[in-house]
């Protein structure tokens, strides 16, 4: 079964720490996405990448950066964690066209990382 794997389900970090959230997909998808999910606000796109070393800002990129050195891996970086970044973070991947033979489910999501910054 195809998978998007997020390295941590739950994470607790201190204010000011540099935080890395890792996401790996095994579907050879070109596109990868990082979303943030907060109650009442739905899914908000932070960054997405359409190719290795390529990235584009989403709706709420402030305070975040990303890295995509390999096609299968997309990392979200919180340069200096703050309490207002406490949230659920979701990674997703897709092929260049949705839906398609390699993306029959549209986006495939990871299980999420619930980050708490204290």
């Amino acid at each position, binding site marked *: 079964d195809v998978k998007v794997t997020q390295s941590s389900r739950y994470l607790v970090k201190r204010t000011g720490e540099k935080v890395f959230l890792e996401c790996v997909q095994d579907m050879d998808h070109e596109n990868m996405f990082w979303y943030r999910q907060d109650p009442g606000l739905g*899914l908000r796109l932070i960054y997405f990448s359409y190719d290795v070393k390529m990235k584009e800002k989403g709706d709420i990129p402030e305070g975040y950066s990303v890295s995509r050195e390999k096609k299968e891996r997309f990392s979200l970086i919180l340069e200096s964690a703050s309490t207002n970044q406490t949230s659920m973070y*979701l990674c*997703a991947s897709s092929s260049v*066209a*949705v839906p398609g033979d390699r993306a029959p*489910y*549209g*986006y495939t*999501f990871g*299980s999420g990382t619930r980050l708490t910054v204290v």
Partner: protein
Amino acid sequence: AQSVAQPEDQVNVAEGNPLTVKCTYSVSGNPYLFWYVQYPNRGLQFLLKYITGDNLVKGSYGFEAEFNKSQTSFHLKKPSALVSDSALYFCAVTPGDYKLSFGAGTTVTVRA
């Protein structure tokens, strides 16, 4: 730009009753529509999709959705809800490129 509206933040039904979660969309060209479900502290899981053809689409766990082009709607339905259907449901639309736009989500609570 495409968009999705889910007009109800919450839907509450009794177990065994019909369940409907509403979704309307706006997109240029032909729409490709999806429903996803999210259980607590989990990622989104695919339920069903509409690409073309029959307006009634059947998906996982007994869910179905009806595509209505004139009303630009894609409502999710289940004839007899279960307590285990309690979750957060998202509708999404794309014109066929890689951009999938999501609704804000509807929380479904099914009471025993």
